């Protein structure tokens, strides 16, 4: 109940804040949409010369990219703003006190503290576009595949959040490393292409140690090809494992926090 109250206040604050900065909101929405256009142009240039990329056709590759985009945007709506501020300001300025003294989970509270609802505007374009692209792939999508995909996409979004937390946790020790907030953005470069383009070593690392490839590739593979139980189980297991790691690291980092003197 108290979480619901907090969320309601945060949503109201976010709406009031965004209403006052229409220029920022419009520019962010445009740059996000523009990135989609740039990437589609690049894919068109590539697929003018090849029929498939590591066995994936144009529409499948675009779908994979949109899958990445949707997960990043969804995280942007809910948690990205709070985590960015954590990496840039909260520990350095001592503002983390505000979150630490409340009788709620501080990791969750910080994460949801700065929602960016304007990302929903972009999602309203990218989600229907993803559905249209999936239908254009020429692959007969079974109902079970779609259900398995939705199940895995749900865990993907949560896994992306936990990995985002892990990337900013060092801020408890390295208070002036603003670039930590950019680490996950760079990881999205890896998530947007079929896993087949990478070497075996890269695949092993990004499917297990820091599983950003699993976030987009496994759900998309499940949608287009046969459902593999081991993929479903793996997705659930790594989400819980990285959730546990993220929480543990956060708690360890928190012990190192000494207000503005950090």
């Amino acid at each position, binding site marked *: 109940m108290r979480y619901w109250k907090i969320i309601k206040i945060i949503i109201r604050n976010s709406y009031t804040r965004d209403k006052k900065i229409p220029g920022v909101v*419009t520019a962010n929405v445009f740059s996000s949409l523009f990135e989609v256009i740039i990437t589609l142009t690049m894919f068109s240039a590539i697929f003018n010369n090849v029929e498939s990329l590591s066995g994936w056709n144009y529409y499948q590759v675009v779908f994979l990219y949109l899958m990445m985009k949707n997960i990043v945007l969804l995280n942007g709506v809910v948690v990205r703003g709070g985590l960015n501020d954590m990496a840039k300001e909260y520990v350095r300025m001592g503002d983390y006190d505000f979150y630490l003294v409340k009788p709620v989970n501080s990791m969750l509270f910080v994460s949801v503290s700065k929602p960016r609802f304007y990302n929903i505007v972009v999602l309203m374009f990218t989600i229907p576009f993803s559905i249209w692209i999936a239908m254009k792939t020429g692959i007969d999508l079974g109902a079970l595949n779609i259900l398995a995909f939705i199940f895995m996409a749900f865990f993907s979004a949560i896994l992306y959040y936990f990995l985002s937390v892990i990337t900013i946790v060092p801020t408890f020790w390295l208070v002036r490393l603003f670039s930590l907030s950019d680490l996950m953005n760079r990881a999205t470069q890896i998530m947007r292409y079929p896993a087949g383009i*990478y070497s075996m070593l890269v695949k092993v690392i990004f499917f297990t140690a820091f599983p950003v490839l699993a976030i987009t590739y496994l759900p998309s593979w499940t949608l287009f090809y046969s459902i593999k139980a081991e993929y479903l189980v793996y997705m659930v297991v790594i989400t819980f494992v990285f959730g546990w790691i993220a929480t543990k690291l956060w708690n360890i980092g928190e012990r190192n926090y000494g207000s503005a003197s950090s």
Partner: protein
Amino acid sequence: MIKYLVYFKVSLQDVYAYRADFFLFMAINTVFFYVAIALWSAVYQSTGDSEISSYTLSNIITYYLITGLLFRLDLSSSMFLSADIWGGYFTNDYIKPWNIVLVHFIIVLADLFFGMITFLPFFVIMAFTSFQHISLPTFPNFIFFIAVVILSLIMNYCFNLILHALTFHYGDQRSQIALANYIATFLAGAVFPISFLSGWVRDLLLALPFKFLFFTPTEIFLNKVSVAESQVYIAEIAIWIMIFFGISQLVYRTGIKKYSGTGR
């Protein structure tokens, strides 16, 4: 002159305080290069052709290596004139006996210089790990590459001066400036070579001045541009610098009349 040198030194000391942050930023930016190698290697493997739009695999890998370097000259996150005008800090610059346009250019140069220094180790690693694919320029082309890079930096500064000076007239422009620079980066061929496009889109991008930020210098580095063509490009950039500087001065001089010490 000495006061500007001192200002450069002070600006450099200022950015030095954030050295670890610079270092991490440069390190994580190498991801784009390695992903590009993986992507384009797979594309060339699939097509079976040795060239795509006159680019070999070596050309395209060199393209991303050089654009990775040119990205360090992106001044969008090093220029704070707009924020100063908006916040009222511009008064500090305005009352001092110096050229404000030059002072902000010095701040940008210090930031870019430090960024370039911290990027160098990573650039060497990137070049070393892909050395079998790297195409080197001829000596004249290398000289023209350096000249075009320096001139295009000045051109980009003048272009950004216009955007920043608009703050005098229309208030906070930071997100619009970020968006304009983001779009300009794509139009400049930073994501992939403009040659890969076709039709009117390619013609349009080649007619715009932004190509001088990424595409043209890299083409010169790849020896795809002759010395005679390079000379024409340098003349073109000089003209664009004059145009952008002229417009920026117009916007700046008319705007400064609207400035009050409390910001805009």
